[in-house]
């Protein structure tokens, strides 16, 4: 039914996929609670009505007739973060807007996912050296899927959504590998930065982001 992420020693399946398909054709569905849970979770991911800049136009195009994100389960874009599962950060995140994005993320109930769409949301993009540009939203909130592009085509966004669905289908619903929303020890809120005199304070969230390692070239 779905391809889960490979674990070190998978237990031998008591029923093979071929037998499962045969049973399903006869009208008998064999599944597990984990498969059912992740199937339901992944196939009805409702995004938040949230677009910042040019990538939002491509996101809107993906929600319209020709590309139609609704056939992947994102039937409605919710206007309220309290009712949304997915935050598609589409567009340049300015430092002035960043605390608001993080507040919206905090207001979303678990399970919640974040897609960084476009170069600006991933790393600051073409405007990275700008005085008001946050160098990627993953400095403050945990991002699940990165979609590169400037802007990425609607098909790329749909591909990113499908990757997110595959990631959700690989979740374990118990144990230490369980996702954030099923573990009591993991916080679901991120601290909101303050407006400092020259930059946001703190400029990044150390629990979520570490600086990329410097690779020293020989020159």
């Amino acid at each position: 039914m779905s391809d889960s992420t490979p674990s070190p020693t998978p237990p031998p399946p008591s029923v093979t996929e071929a037998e499962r398909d045969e049973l399903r054709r006869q009208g008998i569905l064999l599944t597990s609670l984990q498969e059912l849970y992740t199937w339901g979770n992944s196939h009805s991911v409702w995004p938040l009505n949230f677009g910042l800049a040019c990538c939002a136009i491509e996101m809107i195009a993906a929600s319209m007739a020709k590309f139609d994100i609704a056939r992947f389960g994102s039937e409605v874009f919710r206007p309220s973060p309290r009712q949304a599962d997915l935050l598609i950060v589409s567009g340049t995140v300015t430092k002035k807007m960043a605390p608001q994005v993080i507040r919206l993320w905090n207001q979303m109930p678990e399970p919640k996912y974040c897609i960084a769409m476009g170069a600006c949301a991933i790393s600051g993009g073409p405007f990275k050296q700008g005085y008001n540009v946050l160098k990627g939203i993953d400095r403050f909130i945990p991002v699940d899927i990165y979609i590169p592009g400037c802007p990425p085509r609607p098909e790329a966004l749909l591909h990113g959504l499908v990757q997110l669905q595959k990631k959700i289908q690989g979740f374990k619903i118990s144990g230490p590998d369980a996702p954030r929303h099923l573990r009591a020890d993991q916080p679901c809120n991120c601290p909101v930065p303050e407006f400092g005199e020259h930059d946001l304070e703190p400029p990044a969230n150390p629990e979520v982001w570490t600086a990329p390692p410097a690779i020293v070239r020989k020159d």
Partner: protein
Amino acid sequence: METPDQIRDRLLARFPGAEITVITNPGTAAQHSLLLGAAQARAIAEFLRDDPVLKLDQCSNVTGIDWPEKEIVETTKVSTPDPLNPAGPPKITEQKTKRLQLGYLEVVYHLYSVALRHGPVILRLRTGNRTDQASVPSLTPVWRSCEFQEREVFDLFGVTFDGHPDLRRILMWDEFKDHPMRRDYVEPDDYEWEPTPHGTVLEKAKAHYPAPPAANAQGPRPNV
């Protein structure tokens, strides 16, 4: 439409004693501008808006320029009698005098006429200096479209507009302290490693890696 010189002559006839200078633009677009003094700027703007020949009812763009201080070298030819041959032709020497022109901030307005379909007429207002005399009269009471654009010039250059109804930052947050478009703005040091830096980013990269050994005892330079 009238040339900037004709506009200046009519303005001087209407406002005698006003400071109006035509600044020529050497580019191919030949968009010459009128530099106005602060004292009569508002009255001149209202005249330009209401004058039946010009009727400049739209201010389409307000922008700022940061002119840093400039050292002007003037060369004068001085002729002194030749000490070796007093009766003969004098020796001509060149004397160079250096003059420091203080930096200032400038606000440029582009005015068009929608009624008469002509334009642009370009106005410039200059501040005294870049520190304590950085204010010009606001032209928002004359053209409403200046309101947000003058806020932007205030935010990014630090020019105060006297008479603006709501002067506060518009792009940066209110607690921000710098003026980012000034030439002496220093960004917060937030360099992230990039595989192929070039240009100004390469300069920042050279300053950051490899980490200077003596400067940082904790190991590789933290980037946060």
